[in-house]
């Protein structure tokens, strides 16, 4: 899951980036409102962590503009403004969550997971699909009741498929969701990870749609 962190404080932004990476997120960190607007236009983020007191374009203004454009990306506002009217204004401008600094990184990660799964229409915290079971919080996967060891990127890829069951995802989409800027992406990285997932789980689990991308088909009787 790729998260956009918009925070102008260098030490806090650095910590959010490092901490969320430790918790399995792909993180891009932007330091001002205008750059964040550009980033949101060019990339599909699973969620945004948004500071409010930003240079050039205030966080709330940015949020209002994004919502006016019809953006559905979940936004968690992380700010020092703790007054009730600030919180109300935050939610009413389009925030999905509002957290006052300082915040625990584990809590922040949990809130982001909740925002992402709700935005995918999936309220259960543990994702299940047939005999596949994925726990985003514990970052564990079980196949037919047995735990499976996955690399971080493999887990993230499987997580994306589980959040988009029955939907075809292109290679570019998957790359965009897996890799933050500045991360080195090898040209066939997605193919390699899909290959590993098929090997570790089941060969027929993820289907290739030629010329389009990949899909995790919906299992009959699984909603």
């Amino acid at each position, binding site marked *: 899951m790729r998260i956009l962190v918009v925070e102008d404080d260098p*030490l806090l932004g650095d*910590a959010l980036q490092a901490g969320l990476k430790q918790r399995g997120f792909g993180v891009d960190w932007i330091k001002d409102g205008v750059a964040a607007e550009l980033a949101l236009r060019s990339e599909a983020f699973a969620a945004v962590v948004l500071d409010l007191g930003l240079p050039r374009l205030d966080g709330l203004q940015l949020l209002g503009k994004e919502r006016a454009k019809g953006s559905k990306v979940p936004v968690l506002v992380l700010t020092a403004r703790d007054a009730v009217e600030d919180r109300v204004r935050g939610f009413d401008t389009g925030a999905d969550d509002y957290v006052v600094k300082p915040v625990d*990184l584990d809590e922040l990660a949990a809130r982001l997971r909740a925002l992402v799964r709700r935005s995918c229409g999936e309220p259960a915290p543990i994702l299940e699909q047939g005999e596949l079971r994925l726990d985003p919080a514990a970052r564990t996967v079980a196949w037919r009741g047995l735990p499976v060891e996955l690399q971080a990127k493999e887990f993230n890829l499987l997580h994306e498929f589980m959040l988009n069951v029955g939907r075809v995802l292109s290679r570019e989409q998957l790359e965009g969701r897996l890799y933050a800027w500045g991360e080195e992406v090898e040209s066939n990285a997605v193919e390699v990870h899909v290959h590993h997932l098929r090997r570790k789980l089941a060969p027929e689990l993820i289907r290739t749609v030629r010329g389009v991308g990949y899909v995790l088909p919906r299992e009959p009787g699984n909603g």
Partner: protein
Amino acid sequence: MARTGTRRSIRRELLVVLLAAVAVTWIATAIVSYVDARHELDELLDAHLAQSASLLVAQAGHEAEEIDVEHSPQLHRYGRRVAFQFWENGTALRLHSANAPNARLSSKLEGFSDADIEGQHWRVFSGWDADRRYVVQVGERRDARDEIVAKIAKNLLWPLGVALPALGLLIWLGINRATRPLRLLNREVGQRAPDNLAALELGDAPAEVAPLVVSLNRLFARVATSMENERRFTADAAHELRTPLAALRAQAQVARGAGDAGERARALDNVIAGCDRAAHLIDQLMTLARLEPESFRAQREPCDLQEIARFAAGELAPAALAKAIEIELAPASGPPAAVPGDARLLRILLRNLLDNAVRYSPPHTTIRVRVDRRDGGASIIVADEGPGVAAEERGRLGQRFHRLLGTQATGTGLGLSIAQRIAQIHGATIDFAETAPGVGLAVTVAFAPAADEGA
């Protein structure tokens, strides 16, 4: 209110002063009237004596020889006190009134005289008849006159006894009415909630009370401003401390969850940097909080700007050298540029300017500090070769917590606020410009000529 009894009271004072003035004026008038009345009365009664004497002489002169010694009747209540005697040749008593003594009323046989007879004081007029055979003496007892004068005096004074209490009551009511706005004001101010700093209604306050109300309102406004500043400052400070604390906490969590030693070391370094930054922020906040009150008064002693620049440059030199930045202080030109002020504060001002320059300057650049004297005034210029500040952004420099965009510098956003506040306290101005076209930021602190320093 409990101390009212021991305090001067305008009402009581006015009452006492007014009543005393009325009483004194009244009594003085009475005394003058009394003296005057007494004099007039004496003249009048003397004239009566003289007239009575001449009447007696004219009427009774020729009959006196037929009368042995006769008593004439009482005609008036004062009559008893008026007596007359007819003396033949001044020696033989021929005729006298019933109340007249047997001795001659006066030894003087012509004109007015005073006499004491049998313990009584008499006023006597003596006169001869045309033949100079008889002397008539008409006397009036002094106590009769005294009684009349006493009555006049009494009539002059008794109304005062009645009028004074009545006047006192009227004055008291009048003063109460006049001082009512003061009591209302007192109640209004006394019943106020401590946070109610709204202006008092001027209403129809009289001319004596209106200035007090205006002054109170001015004070309220000042207190309200100062409270608002304080509140804003506290809110700002709390707000600005949250982010460094959040950074500290998050960096510590990153260190705890770090996968390898390198990542942990980096996070821990960040924790330390974050602590330093928070400490610096608190220092700056405290400095600003001390300088903030409008009532702040700086010391005023001659400060040598060159000396202050040297001191601040020395303080910042290690930090600059660590970033490969050079600080260059231009040598003093001419006599020392002394401005009246607080050397300690001026050092803080310059240190903040230099600190900013060091933070925002890239390595291998020079920060130039120069002290200028001009038109009796003086200025310090700090010019760096950093990225500078866009002209439209320069106006926002010095706003509290305003940080420049796109730099990694971890400033508090308070340095220039502090510098501007210190400049303001010293009646100096701060101007921002480019060091050279498109390069750097040059900050000029200009002190007004000493002559203008009176304010």
